[in-house]
């Protein structure tokens, strides 16, 4: 219990580094690390969304490429984040840009899979009547499929965001100084520093989950929420309905 008290104290007060010399700890140090962590995660998420959502919408709308979209997640899950980062460091090099790229790759599968499945699960009747009213393909996507797919899309974003925030913890291996620095380089910050960073990272991940969960609830049409039972829970877990489109 003592260790946790020391760790909390580290967050608020500066200490002399166990490696000698400069100061570590304190609010400004922790904020620097947190900001770098957030920046990296945000950049990766924005790029990943910009790439996956349009692609997922399009594939879902035309009903092709299901195999790719659904199994993207299965494949993505099997690649350990450490291996992905190591691969990038070995083949491309260290640095913010390279690392952000690796994180984009990590973030794409859940968003892509969920966007695709989200569109596929839109009630066919709604789409048909929209087509009957004379809407073009793009209009259908924008006005019918996208809004109805939003809950699942945000479910995917939520999953990716938490993954990215978690993986940004090992960013120091590639030279980007995030909250993982005190965890990986304990000699510079000390044991309290390491525990402090672990606490802050955990809080950050939980906060990301909670905030995006709230956003997901906000974009879910009331009807679906009231339905209760299996359907809403599936959405809340961002779990596509496997019955119709069983992966393999």
């Amino acid at each position, binding site marked *: 219990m003592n260790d946790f008290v020391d760790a909390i104290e580290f967050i608020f007060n500066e200490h002399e580094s166990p490696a000698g010399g400069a100061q570590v700890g304190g609010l400004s140090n922790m904020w620097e690390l947190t900001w770098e962590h957030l920046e990296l995660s945000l950049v990766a998420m924005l790029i990943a969304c910009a790439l996956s959502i349009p692609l997922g919408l399009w594939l879902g709308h035309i009903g092709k490429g299901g195999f790719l979209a659904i199994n993207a997640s299965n494949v993505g899950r*099997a690649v*350990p984040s450490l291996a992905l980062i190591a*691969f990038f460091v*070995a083949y491309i090099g260290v640095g913010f840009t390279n690392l952000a790229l690796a994180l984009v790759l990590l973030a794409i599968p859940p968003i892509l899979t969920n966007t695709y499945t989200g569109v596929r699960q839109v009630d066919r009747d709604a789409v048909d009547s929209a087509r009957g009213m004379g809407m073009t393909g793009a209009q259908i996507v924008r006005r019918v499929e996208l809004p109805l797919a939003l809950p699942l899309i945000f479910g995917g974003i939520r999953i990716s965001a*938490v993954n990215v925030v978690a993986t940004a913890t090992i960013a120091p291996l590639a030279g980007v100084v995030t909250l993982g620095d005190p*965890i990986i380089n304990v000699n510079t910050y000390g044991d309290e520093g390491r525990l402090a960073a672990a606490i802050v990272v*955990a809080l950050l991940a939980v906060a990301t989950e909670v905030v995006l969960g709230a956003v997901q609830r906000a974009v879910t049409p009331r009807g679906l929420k009231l339905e209760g039972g299996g359907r809403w829970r599936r959405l809340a877990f961002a779990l596509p309905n*496997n019955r119709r489109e069983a992966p393999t």
Partner: protein
Amino acid sequence: MSALLAQVEIRDRSEDTCVSDNGFCPEWIADNFDRYVDPFFQHVLLTVVAVAIGFAIASTLAVVAYRRRWLINPVTQVTGALYTIPSIAAFFLLLPITGRGFVTAIVALVSYVLLIIFRNVLTGLDNVPEETKDAGRGMGLTDRQLLWRVELPLALPEVMAGLRIAVTTTVGLATLAFFAGAGGLGERIFEDIVFKSNVVVAGGLAVVLAAVLDAAILLVQRAITPWTRAVAAR
């Protein structure tokens, strides 16, 4: 004092070789593959033990929560929170409590698996059609018989899907287990992160392990739920 008669041989390194360039070298890999064997088995052990324990706990919780609906929310919140905490952070949050080593790694990995299994078992049970349950009750089955003979078997596809997700995710997370002092393939990756051969072999083995376990579970699923094949064909 007699001089050393033997000499350390200074090798000729004037030429670039695949290995000194940190490249991808099949010959080196073949010669040194045994370096990856022990970490591989450590990795398998970590994954299997974590998923087994996690499955036991979470599926029990799900079956209980299936009948006592008020449990669903609290269990989801708790397992959800555990799921959200990044594994590296978890290893070091546990450090003051469980120390360094296998146990810490397992505790963190199990906590990650709980939500996945819980939600899948529950969703699987929830998806059992009402008519089927009615038919079962009509035949005179008690609640307990209904659960074991009708609901659980019909929930199997979802359960197995959850098991597959749990296994592949755990393989991925177990690469970080060396931070907790539990070995695994991640240790090899971390040892030489610039040597392409090393990264590809160690990382590749992890991916292969995940794929193999995933396929194995799928095969088992197909074998014990033949009726779903007919359904999918519809």
